[in-house]
């Protein structure tokens, strides 16, 4: 009874936080485009707050730059349980075009924090990001919440 009630609440109100770990901000503006009336992220109960302390979903863009090697874990620890991490774009997966000799980046992202889902693309279209968030977000958060108990 209590579990199913918690499930409903966890699925219907999701707070997201965006962390740019050194990308070109192409993915970031596609995430901003998600807020626009055409895609309207908030109708699905996903709210952008950009505050790790109240985030359920952490969206990470960019190859991991020098400064983020330690800070990523700190930010991940600040987010309350249950939480999921979605990597947006090709950079957190492989470093993409930046992953060449002479660059100062440290991909992939899953060496630093556990990643639940990835959306490849440079940058992925807003519909793809939205699709991934809705496919993985609510159920994964609810499932993780049950596991902990």
């Amino acid at each position, binding site marked *: 009874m209590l579990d199913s009630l918690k499930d409903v609440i966890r699925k219907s109100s999701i707070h997201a936080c965006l962390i*740019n770990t050194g990308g070109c901000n192409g993915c970031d503006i596609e995430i*901003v485009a998600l807020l626009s*009336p055409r895609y309207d992220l908030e109708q699905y109960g996903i709210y952008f707050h950009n505050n790790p302390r109240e985030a359920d979903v952490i969206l990470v863009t*960019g190859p991991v730059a020098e400064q983020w090697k330690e800070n990523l874990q700190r930010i991940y620890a600040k987010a309350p349980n249950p939480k999921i991490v979605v990597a947006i774009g090709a950079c957190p997966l492989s470093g993409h075009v930046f992953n060449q000799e002479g660059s100062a980046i440290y991909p992939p992202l899953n060496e630093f924090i556990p990643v639940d889902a990835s959306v490849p693309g440079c940058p992925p279209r807003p519909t793809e990001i939205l699709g991934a968030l809705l496919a993985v977000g609510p159920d994964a958060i609810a499932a993780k919440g049950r596991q902990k108990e």
Partner: protein
Amino acid sequence: MIVPIGPIHPALKEPLRLKLQTRGEKVIGAEIDYGYVHRGIERVMEGKTWQKAVYLSERVCGICSYIHTQTFTETFEKIAGEEAPLRAQFLRVIANELDRIQSHLLANSTYFNTIEHETLFMYMLSLREPVMDAIELLTGNRVHMAWNVVGGVRLDAKEVHLKSIMNILDNLESQYARYPQMFEHGPLLGLRSKDVGYMSKEDSIKARAVGPIARASSITEDLRTEKPVYKDHLDFNVIWRGEGDNFARNMNRFDEVTESIKIIKQAIENLPEGKVRKKVNIPAGYADNRNEAPRGEVAYMIETNGNLIKNISIRTPSIMNIDACARYMFKDVATVADAVATYASVDPCIACTERVTIIDEESGKVHEVNGLHNVKSINLK
């Protein structure tokens, strides 16, 4: 007292640390920490052919990605002493101005978000989506267009696509006029924006501010007026204002959108026939090239041996604008909330701003990486 804001903060889209010096609630100064998104693009570009580096130049910045490839390819054309075919130059103008429209709308929407006027924030984003569609029709992609090559553009535009771009622009133009008026005459918006974050003309020259931020402080420079294709074929006005506050900076961007729509319409109507790409033989040499990005002047300095890039340096507009913001606009701001709004009004783009300072731990010697020839001498890894 020092109030730190960032790098992850509800008001900021990109990571940066603002240290605001406050007395009571008044902000009297600021310090800015960069370094959160440094990737070392210039270093990666060295020793590569232009075909491999043009993708990297596109990914310097996602919002103004188009102008970076244009400036990069034009620099190589300048080294070869040739120009792209006229049709390609016109198509570049169309794409550049479409990019400027979406960038300005995004910048204004961010500003309205920080002064918590969500209605205008949503209006701006909904105006922006048709423009992104127009960009996609023309080039095939929404953000990273991969459209410029040395000697022209990759794809020719079809008549049917140009027609639908004209339709999109007509729709945009018919709706557009009410939004600047809402901002200009709204009493609350005026209270939050007028006389906040003032920068005088002298200060903006001292800070080397560029683009709409400088033009809002009585500077009438616009690099587009010096470009041959704009000068000879297209008719437009340089928008500038005298107030120098947040209100002026946003109004300046609002008015530039109207001018950009005018330029695109002229360019589509007068689009010449012909090829869109030609072969360019690149000799060894050096050239620098400047262009007007949505945020101001972007400059590329490239040295090549005819095949590989020997040295490259990129100067992007946001670094001067953010510096102007920290030094001159944050002198006398009433509250921290207003300071954040002032910061958003300069349209900061961190991804292209990133610089690195290397401090040798043993000797304490500081290498500042700037200019063309320093890049080569420092090994980052």
